[in-house]
């Protein structure tokens, strides 16, 4: 018996050795081409773009938690569904259509015309990284713009109407702006600086949110018969805080990742600028609400961190750290004033402050580059040329976004309708739109029975 086993083992080992020797005889296997400095740089850049892209993807969780935390429990499942589909539908539509409009071969400096479904060539982009990494990175940015609107239109929007909007913004509204500023369009040719997208991403989402919230009207109970605003408190500020922290974390991908290169020396400075702006925003909002409302307001301070982040997104590579802190701090004050203005003067109901954080502070941050850019900013002796370009960019993007959003939401409104019925709004969209409750079994009723 022992002899037989040894014989079997011996013949197996011999076979293995023979095969290995044959394989080693093939040069390609024995001596594979080693990495070069150039291929390593490309690899670093690719890994960088992908990993920062994954961080930006995680911001979807951030948006979802902020929006659900700041709204009522009876609508939680619906908010989650809207955020989920913003990303899911957006990923598909952007790959199929939006990416081409944004980065395809240019027509008249207005929009791209090639690359639908990533067909054809993208050599005109001059990328050092594979197109797939670039596509993924741009997809998560597009999804960020789209998901801003769900917060402003929360608690009263028909789900199917929202999906339609989400398709159009990812297919058309956002990519055109992206082409103007990043894809070779006219604003890029003018020299507009929007490094990671205060205007491209955040103000597009913010202005679409403005028009959407305007057309759909306020939630039932938001304004009294005398037109005075009341508070409709969110059901879970801890979830909202989790969302803000996730967004802050994801922004470390959003801003530094926009270098598209991990071998760039600037990524550290960009990360610091990002953090300082967020910190300054949160701190200033805390101080400002403490003075204005006698107590530091938790949900507004959370918005303040985001305001700083949105504002620095345009100039994170162009400004100094002290400039970043100042921009963030000013955004922290601006967001509080804007929330009060939109709530009380414009009487537009924005449950999470999306219009103020993303629209107003996005435009503000873009304009601030005209002052604080170390290279060409007004405060550094660069004159007003950059500032004027920034303002032209802000205004034209507002016009395009608000205009197309008006047409889009307007058509939806007069055809299938934007808003759920009053009865459904009172019961909650979870039951009305999805036939389920996010909080099945929990008692989460507000003391005021009508809300």
């Amino acid at each position: 018996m022992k002899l037989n086993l040894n014989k079997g083992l011996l013949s197996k080992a011999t076979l293995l050795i023979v095969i290995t020797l044959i394989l080693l005889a093939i040069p390609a296997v024995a001596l594979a081409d080693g990495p070069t400095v150039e291929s390593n740089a490309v690899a670093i850049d690719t890994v960088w773009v992908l990993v920062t892209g994954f961080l930006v993807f995680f911001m979807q969780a951030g948006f979802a938690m902020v929006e659900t935390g700041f709204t009522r429990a009876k609508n939680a499942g619906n908010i989650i569904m809207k955020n989920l589909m913003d990303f899911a539908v957006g990923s598909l539509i952007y790959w199929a259509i939006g990416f081409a409009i944004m980065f395809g071969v240019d027509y008249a400096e207005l929009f791209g015309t090639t690359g639908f479904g990533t067909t054809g060539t993208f050599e005109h982009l001059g990328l050092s990284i594979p197109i797939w990494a670039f596509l993924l990175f741009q997809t998560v940015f597009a999804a960020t713009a789209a998901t801003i609107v769900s917060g402003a239109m929360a608690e009263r929007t028909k789900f199917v109407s929202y999906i339609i909007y989400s398709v159009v913004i990812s297919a058309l509204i956002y990519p055109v702006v992206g082409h103007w500023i990043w894809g070779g369009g006219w604003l890029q040719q003018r020299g507009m600086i929007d490094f990671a997208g205060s205007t491209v991403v955040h103000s597009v989402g913010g202005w679409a949110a403005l028009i959407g919230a305007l057309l759909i009207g306020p939630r039932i109970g938001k304004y009294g018969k005398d037109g005075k605003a009341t508070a409709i408190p969110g059901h879970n500020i801890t979830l909202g805080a989790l969302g803000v922290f996730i967004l802050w974390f994801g922004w470390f991908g959003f801003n530094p990742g926009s270098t598209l290169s991990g071998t760039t020396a600037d990524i550290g400075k960009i990360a610091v600028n990002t953090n300082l702006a967020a910190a300054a925003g949160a701190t200033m909002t805390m101080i400002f609400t403490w003075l204005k409302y006698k107590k530091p307001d938790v949900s507004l301070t959370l918005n303040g961190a985001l305001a700083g982040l949105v504002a620095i997104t345009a100039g994170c590579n162009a400004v100094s750290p002290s400039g970043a802190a100042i921009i963030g701090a000013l955004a922290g004050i601006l967001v509080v004033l804007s929330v009060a203005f939109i709530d009380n003067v414009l009487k537009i109901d924005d449950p999470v402050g999306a219009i103020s954080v993303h629209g107003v502070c996005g435009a503000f941050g873009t304009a601030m580059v005209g002052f604080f850019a170390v290279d060409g900013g007004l405060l550094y002796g660069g004159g007003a040329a950059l500032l004027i370009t920034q303002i032209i960019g802000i205004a034209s993007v507002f016009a395009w976004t608000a205009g197309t959003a008006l047409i889009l939401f307007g058509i939806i409104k007069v055809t299938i309708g934007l808003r759920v019925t009053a009865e459904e709004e009172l019961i909650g969209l979870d039951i009305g739109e999805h036939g389920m409750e996010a909080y099945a079994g929990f008692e989460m009723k507000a003391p005021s029975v009508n809300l």
Partner: protein
Amino acid sequence: MKKIEAIIRPGKLDEIQNALAAAEILGITVTHALGFGRQKGYTQIYRGQEVTTHLLPKIKLEIVTADEKAEEVIAIIVKNARTGQVGDGKIFVQNVDEVVRIRTGEQGEQAI
């Protein structure tokens, strides 16, 4: 038989339960309640809008006892729930027509 319904401050529940257990009075139903008598509400500010909350969190106790024990139960609740501030609560006493123990079908005072 009497049903003693008491609205008390939430923080006083533990003391009352311990005291009732010490007096060997078993059987209680506890619910969360919102309400006010003369106690004023409080004002919050949410994102710059003032919200006045009038309905305050309270705890409601319901205890069913034999007639002779009612005074004792009321005394225990009053002693342990009183702080002397507005908002201490109220006790309502009602007559109970019938009590049934579901497990055995017993009725009347034996079922308490």
